[in-house]
């Protein structure tokens, strides 16, 4: 199931208010920040994972995705910009 990270009503970032242990059913309530990685869209998370799995080679990623190198690098630059903005707004 896909984890929602954006409020469907007002589009603000969602926070974690409850966690539950599957085994003993202990519940923890609070107001926790989502980890930065989870604030990204599924596509962006997959992109980072692919980058990691291809040993950090954008060229290799581009080849696998059937895109050109500059297209892939632009995607990476946009993602870096987004992560920097998320870090700033923390």
């Amino acid at each position, binding site marked *: 199931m896909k984890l929602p990270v954006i409020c469907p009503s007002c589009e603000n970032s969602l926070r974690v208010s409850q966690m539950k242990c599957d085994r003993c059913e202990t519940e923890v309530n609070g107001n926790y920040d989502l980890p930065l990685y989870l604030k990204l869209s599924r596509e962006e998370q997959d992109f980072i994972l692919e980058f990691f799995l291809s040993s950090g080679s954008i060229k290799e990623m581009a080849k696998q995705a059937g895109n*050109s*190198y500059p*297209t892939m*690098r*632009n995607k990476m630059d946009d993602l870096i910009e987004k992560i920097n903005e998320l870090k700033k707004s923390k």
Partner: protein
Amino acid sequence: MNWQLLLNPFDKFSEKNIFIFGIIASIIGSYITFLSGATFDGLIEVHLNPQTTFFIALKENSLHIVLITVLLFLLGKIINKRTRFIDVLNAALLFRVPFYFMSLLLIFPFLQSLDNEIKKNPEAIGKLSLNPFDLAMILLITCVLISLLVYSIVLLYKGFKTATNVKKPLHYVFFGVIILFAEILSRIILPLI
């Protein structure tokens, strides 16, 4: 047909493939220009000139490619330090391809005879008697030429966008200014070489 690929080949094809295609297209395109007796006397211009040789066509073509590459590369470096020369060069190489089709269109004999008539007597341009078929052909060719010109600018823009990852409207204005500047510069440099 994949239109997206035609409008933005820089998205999918590797820089090596685009470069090889661009170089081959430049040589073939210059030869077509020589055969059709056309001349690239400006960055975004094609005119008829029966004195054109293959060497002249290649020289003009190369100048336009080098000029727009250098200017856009400098702009690209200012906008985004990661801009690579090869990506801008590829944009310039593909930008020229529609111009080769334009010069191919100028092969039509009736266009050449019309051009000769106008050159002989430029003042009689308003008095030329054209039959409806010729007139329709001129209109059709004009539409195709304009479409090819727009397509060439689209290719250059898409190539530049991919090379630099530009997004701000001001950068597009700079892009337009560079094209106009390159057009003026090519008209100054061409008679000197």
